């Protein structure tokens, strides 16, 4: 029997098939729901198997364990139909990952975000409003979240995220090293902070042996001094922007006073090294005895617990050092649901579960971080240092709800860098920063 299939026919058939497959591959994916009316407070459909993708960026190894061994198994008992895939990523590439995901229209269902993410994403209509869900989730109790955190995630009257972590900046100090120079209590005011930093500094000629005040180093250069500046600005009664986010306040007296205080520590008193001592692995200058005072989140305690337990009893958090007021700044990290999710109800079920008091305690307790729920203020994992920080969080300032905050950080950080390197005066640098920020606000 002879075949009718000639070489040419075969090639042509192959070509048609290729074209067809090519076109099929280029066809758009099924359009995701972009505003699915949430079935308020309800869990996922009973029998329908659902798979959720979650992106986590705020975690330690212990957090992964807590999720895998405690939180997700407990969730699976209640919602056996929902499986959860977690993608663990890192802060330094997170913005890029999420941006690409949203631009491509394929996002995780649930994701974490930093302090300034919500306005940025809300402006682009990327976040699912949660009001209808929250309204009917009585037992979950939205009122249990600290008022400032609830306000932080509310934009134009809509709740767009659920806070899960308070990243408060307060003074930290080495109790033993302060005692060495005769101080038995932490600084309560800027003047005391300056005095203690000066007294605790040890130099060998031009070289620092120990810095009285230590800027926490960061992989991202501009955050070294910027985060300290923002924390102190709150104590000076200042803000970055005016109430309606139309004017920079960087050239106002409060900002100038704060920048000048940092300049004094670095250039006048030479009690702070700029740039600071680099970390040795995960350990900062406070752990290695090269730094005495700093302004930080709970990082020193976490690192001490993991890598230098002998320093744990020596590291103490203090209430914010007061200038006009004893106040600091808090970065509030939060979960939010993508508006592109096709499974909003199931995603809410998971988010609601993770942020229940007992589950949130497991999550934040896994790396000894502060939870935003009032009922967790005295949880088992809360240490004495964390209590000090939680108290500071109650009155702490948060970032303005402006969708281009990340851009505003840059000129501010540049100005601080120029001041602390002695390249520009406080007035000139801060005025330049204010002008640059005003240009951004005017666009």
């Amino acid at each position, binding site marked *: 029997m002879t075949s009718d299939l000639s070489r040419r026919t075969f090639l042509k058939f192959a070509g048609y098939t*290729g074209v067809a497959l090519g076109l099929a591959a*280029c066809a758009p994916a099924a359009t995701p729901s972009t505003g699915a009316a949430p079935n308020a407070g309800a869990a996922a459909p009973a029998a329908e198997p659902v798979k959720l993708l979650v992106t986590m960026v705020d975690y330690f190894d212990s957090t992964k364990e807590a999720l895998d061994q405690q939180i997700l198994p407990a969730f699976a008992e209640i919602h056996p139909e929902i499986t959860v895939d977690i993608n663990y990523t890192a802060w330094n590439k997170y913005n890029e990952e999420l941006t690409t995901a*949203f631009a491509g229209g394929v996002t995780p269902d649930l994701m974490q975000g930093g302090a300034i993410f919500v306005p940025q994403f809300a402006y682009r*209509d990327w976040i699912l409003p949660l009001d209808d869900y929250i309204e009917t989730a009585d037992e979950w109790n939205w009122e249990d979240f600290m008022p400032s955190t609830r306000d932080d995630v509310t934009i134009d009257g809509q709740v767009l995220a659920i806070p899960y972590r308070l990243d408060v900046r307060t003074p930290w100090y080495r109790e033993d090293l302060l005692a060495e120079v005769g101080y038995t209590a932490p600084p309560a005011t800027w003047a005391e902070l300056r005095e203690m930093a000066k007294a605790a500094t040890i130099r060998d000629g031009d070289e620092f042996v120990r810095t009285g005040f230590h800027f926490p180093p960061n992989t*991202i250069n501009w955050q070294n001094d910027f985060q300290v500046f923002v924390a102190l600005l709150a104590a000076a009664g200042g803000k970055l922007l005016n109430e309606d986010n139309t004017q920079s306040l960087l050239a106002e007296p409060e900002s100038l006073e704060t920048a000048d205080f940092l300049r004094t520590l670095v250039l006048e008193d030479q009690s702070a090294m700029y740039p600071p001592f680099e970390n040795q692995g995960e350990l900062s200058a406070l752990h290695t005895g090269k730094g005495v005072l700093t302004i930080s989140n709970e990082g020193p305690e976490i690192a001490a617990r993991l890598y230098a337990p002998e320093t744990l009893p020596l590291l103490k958090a203090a209430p914010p050092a007061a200038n006009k007021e004893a106040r600091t700044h808090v970065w509030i990290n939060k979960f939010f649901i993508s508006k592109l999710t096709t499974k909003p109800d199931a995603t809410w079920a998971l988010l609601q579960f993770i942020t229940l008091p007992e589950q949130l305690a497991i999550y934040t307790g896994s790396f000894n971080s502060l939870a935003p729920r009032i009922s967790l203020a005295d949880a088992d994992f809360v240490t004495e240092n964390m209590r000090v920080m939680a108290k500071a969080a109650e009155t702490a300032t948060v970032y303005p709800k402006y969708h281009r905050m990340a851009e505003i950080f840059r000129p501010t950080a540049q100005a601080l*860098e*120029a001041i602390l390197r002695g390249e520009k005066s406080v007035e000139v640098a801060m005025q330049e920063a204010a002008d640059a920020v005003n240009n951004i606000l005017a666009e």
Partner: protein
Amino acid sequence: MATFQEARSFLEGEFWEKDSSMVATAAKNPSVSQQNDAYRLSRILDSDGFTALLFLFIPLLILGALKFYPVVFNLVISFTNYDLSPNFRFVGLRNYQEILTNDVYLKAIRNTLLYVVGTVPIGTFLSLFIATLLNQGIRGRLFFRTAFYLPVVTLVAATALVWRWIMNPQGGLANTALDSLGLPGLGWLTDPNTAMLSLVVITLWGGIGGNMVIFLAGLQGIPSELYEAAEIDGARAWQSFFYITIPMLSPVTLFVVVTYTIAIFRSFGLIFMLTQGGPSLSTNTLVWEVYQTAFGYLRFGLGAAISVVLLLTILLLSIPMRLFQGEDF
């Protein structure tokens, strides 16, 4: 299989001319017209040219989707304020105006040029120098070739970590060495005055091996008779080098200079790992600025405009190089 000429004649309409008499008959009789249409269609489908086009379709689709579309899309959004929100609009040349008037972007352009000027000439010279040395019959030649090439196959992340340690101002290897010589330590990557220099040193370390291999291949392609003739004529080693090696290597040198220049213009990994554009924007290059503007601030329109400026800068430098050489490469 369709030949190139067949495909070309098909595309240029020769096929249609051959069938013009049938078309004329069909105009008078509708049923004949339908038959002719079917016949004509079957001729088209049967033709080698059509088969060729069919096979070209997928590669062209892929090429268009992955190469041309992003470039064109990038160019188009560079004239908008596109920030991934639904409310973007055409802004004309405003993004370009901002790049050419804002100090941050002007500094990025300056830094990029400084980075290229600091790296390419020295890197090309060192690569040629080492390649020439390793082209001699020295002992351990293979070891040295491997040693110089190793940085090329080392991950950027690993390279960055090692150099970060070497250049750590507090107890790093570089400052320890300076200290042992009685010299003061430097801030290296943390000092705006030395950060770009440090970056250039690290980039040179990582790039010399790759160019060295290209030069080695070029050197081994030069006929030995030329050197023998020069030697008989009494030429000295340096004369052979300048009058034989350098001219014979000129196409290779051009290739190295152009590709190295483009690579440095596009260099991102080390900056991302080591400095993130700092300190005081001293290592803020155009590529870093594209990344920062687009993914850090989500200003994709402006980021696209910066990338167009980068592209134009590369073209402006590459075209004269090619014209100067007067040869295709």
